[in-house]
């Protein structure tokens, strides 16, 4: 109750004319920045930081936070419309968001993503208010062993997105793990840097993501002779096709709820971040869905779940920052600079000594989400009409945007070259049935897992029993075990249900329906082939024949 009254006081601090103006400016700027590939939330905040020097600290931090979640949504816009993720956290939005846009449903996709982000942001703010103190105490007890165990659970998300061609999917995972090992490791050893200083930090994930998903997708669309004309529907708020249908809304309740909670608690964990939260959410939604075969082809839950998780994680990342002074992600690390710039030290004393600052910030996140939703409702028709631009014009513009976006990351021409190389790799992956999604997840998860495991072994002096000797680890292991069992039960039920559905369809169609593929209901995130006239993504591929 005390927290809620503090939140109300914070609301009164946030809702002043000056703060509202800068909040709106931050949200708008954040959306624009987030929509540019290569310039994610952290870069956006860093760019705006100097502008806020002369502002009152409360106003300044409100504006920076607005840029943060504005950028999270901005990345969704390009992910959905042109399949180019604005940043790593928006990658998952391309899996189902872009197929929805290709079906002429860009409007409903963006509206539902905005709604999911708004609800998740609201849930996040409420959870911060209610759980900031106990969560921070818990988070401070989480060390490398627990973080390693949590990251392992993200590997489950890889299993879900391996796609139909499991062997090729596994190869992609290993390639991703391999890429994740590049750079200087914990012991200061150079690994696969080939004497290049620019590779000492490894290959930036943003470069890979823009290449594989942005340029790769454009090249693939041209290669397959994709639609030269965009969808003919013009989007307008007054048009029925702009708004989600009742089915879209009904399908989204669960994913938004689950994504909000999952994303928030994932964001609380230092180092986890919005990217991991969105992958976990996608894996979860696909596992519990009654129609997992629709994922990757424009399933609304596949978009709104990760979008909600993404936004909730950004709220969750504020918890360790505000309560412990520990930035939970790269973006909150930049925010921390803002705090220090105004002479404020985030940590346990911040909320006691500067409550108007801390609670003003938390309250402004809710107001900012409302503003984001309202802005988007009017801006989405403008954005959605971009999807009508013919591919012959869109493709070179998108490739150019990817080039400049990549250059904007570090000003490195080598990274631009790498990005184009990954674009060609992305094209080849799609043609030959590899899984770009598995590659990206593996890069993120593999590097984090290795680092956490090695830190754990250093702490325990090589004793692996640390995983069951620490109480925090036991809790995480217990939760993981329960989750695995539930997942296995759910997947088994999905398989049985899908097989029964296909038998029924086969009987009613006189036996002319393709049999259920092996592993039916288990996983298929095949973004590698265009839809056929029958609407199926299946292709006659050597690796689709499971019984060899």
């Amino acid at each position, binding site marked *: 109750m005390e927290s809620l009254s503090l939140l109300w006081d914070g609301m009164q601090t946030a809702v002043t004319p000056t703060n509202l103006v800068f909040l709106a400016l931050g949200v708008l700027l954040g959306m624009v920045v987030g929509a540019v590939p290569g310039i994610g939330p952290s870069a956006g905040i860093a760019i705006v930081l100097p502008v806020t020097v002369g502002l009152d600290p409360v106003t300044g931090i409100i504006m920076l936070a607005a840029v943060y979640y504005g950028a999270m949504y901005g990345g969704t816009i390009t992910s959905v419309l042109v399949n180019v993720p604005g940043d790593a956290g928006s990658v998952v939005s391309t899996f189902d968001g872009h197929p929805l846009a290709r079906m002429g449903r860009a409007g409903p996709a963006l509206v539902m993503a905005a709604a999911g982000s708004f609800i998740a942001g609201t849930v996040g703010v409420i959870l911060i208010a209610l759980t900031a103190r106990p969560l921070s105490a818990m988070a401070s007890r989480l060390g490398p062993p627990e973080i390693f165990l949590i990251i392992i659970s993200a590997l489950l998300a890889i299993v879900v997105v391996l796609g139909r061609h499991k062997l090729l999917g596994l190869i992609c995972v290993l390639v991703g*793990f*391999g890429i994740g090992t590049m750079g200087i490791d914990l012991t200061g050893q150079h*690994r696969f840097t080939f004497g290049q200083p620019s590779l000492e930090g490894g290959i930036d994930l943003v470069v890979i993501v823009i290449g594989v998903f942005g340029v790769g997708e454009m090249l693939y669309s041209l290669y397959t002779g994709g639609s030269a004309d965009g969808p003919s529907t013009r989007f307008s708020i007054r048009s029925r096709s702009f708004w989600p249908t009742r089915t879209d809304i009904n399908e989204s309740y669960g994913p938004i709820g689950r994504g909000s909670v999952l994303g928030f608690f994932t964001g609380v964990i230092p180092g986890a971040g919005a990217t991991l939260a969105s992958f976990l959410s996608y894996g979860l939604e696909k596992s519990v869905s009654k129609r997992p075969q629709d994922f990757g082809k424009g399933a609304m839950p596949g978009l709104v779940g990760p979008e909600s998780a993404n936004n909730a994680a950004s709220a969750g990342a504020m918890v360790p920052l505000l309560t412990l002074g520990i930035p939970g992600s790269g973006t909150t690390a930049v925010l921390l600079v803002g705090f220090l710039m105004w002479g404020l030290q985030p940590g346990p004393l911040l909320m006691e000594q500067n409550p108007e600052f801390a609670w003003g910030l938390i309250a402004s996140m809710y107001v900012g989400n409302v503003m984001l939703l309202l802005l988007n409702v009017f801006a989405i028709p403008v954005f959605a009409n971009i999807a009508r631009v013919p591919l012959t014009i869109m493709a*070179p513009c998108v490739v*150019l945007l990817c080039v400049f976006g990549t250059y904007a990351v570090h000003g490195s021409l080598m990274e631009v070259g790498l990005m184009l190389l990954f674009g060609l790799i992305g094209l080849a992956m799609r043609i030959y049935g590899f899984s770009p999604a598995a590659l990206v997840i593996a890069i993120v998860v593999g590097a984090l897992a290795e680092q956490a495991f090695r830190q754990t072994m250093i702490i325990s002096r090589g004793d692996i029993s640390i995983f069951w000797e620490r109480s925090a680890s036991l809790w995480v292991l217990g939760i993981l075990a329960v989750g695995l069992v539930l997942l296995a039960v759910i997947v088994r039920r999905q398989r049985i249900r899908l097989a029964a559905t296909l038998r029924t369809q086969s009987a009613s169609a006189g036996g002319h329906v393709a049999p259920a593929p092996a592993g039916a209901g288990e996983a298929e995130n095949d973004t590698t082939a265009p839809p056929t006239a029958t609407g199926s993504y299946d292709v006659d591929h050597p690796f689709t024949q499971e019984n060899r």
Partner: protein
Amino acid sequence: MEREPGMSPPVSSPSSTDEARTAGKRRPWGLITSLALLLLLFLAYTLEAFTLPWAAHNGYIGAGQFPRIIGCAGVILTALALVLSFRSGAKGEAGEAVPAERLRLGHPAVAITLASVLLVALLEVLGGLIAGVAFLCVCLTILNRGRPVTNGVIALGFMGLSYVLMHTLLNAPWPTGVLGI
């Protein structure tokens, strides 16, 4: 034709599918080439991994442990995939994952790729603005034929907006070239 369990329906039209199936042995050469290249990469990766220490000086996990495991697993799985690809061709099954539109020099995907390579090469010489306009003009001339005025307007408009947004407003790193724009 009877389908084996797990076999997916082909994406190509019935007549081209029958053609592929009656054509006899037809290996997925594109996939085989990709897997062969991957195998070479994994072999090189593994060899390099074996030059890294297995254990650190204090006996803990060294820099080479994970890469060695990843490399060996990659070599094994890729070799397996390569063998399976050859065998699928020996059975006379259809080839590429997607019915390939043969790539030729004038193909849009090839044209954009070549133009992109040229763009990167000239980016820091001509500067982002000029190089970008030139890139768009070339690509749109190939992809959007017969509309030179429209293409020119799109090229100038898009690059102008990008320049203002990224270089002026956001102050993001921007290749200025010898002319400094």
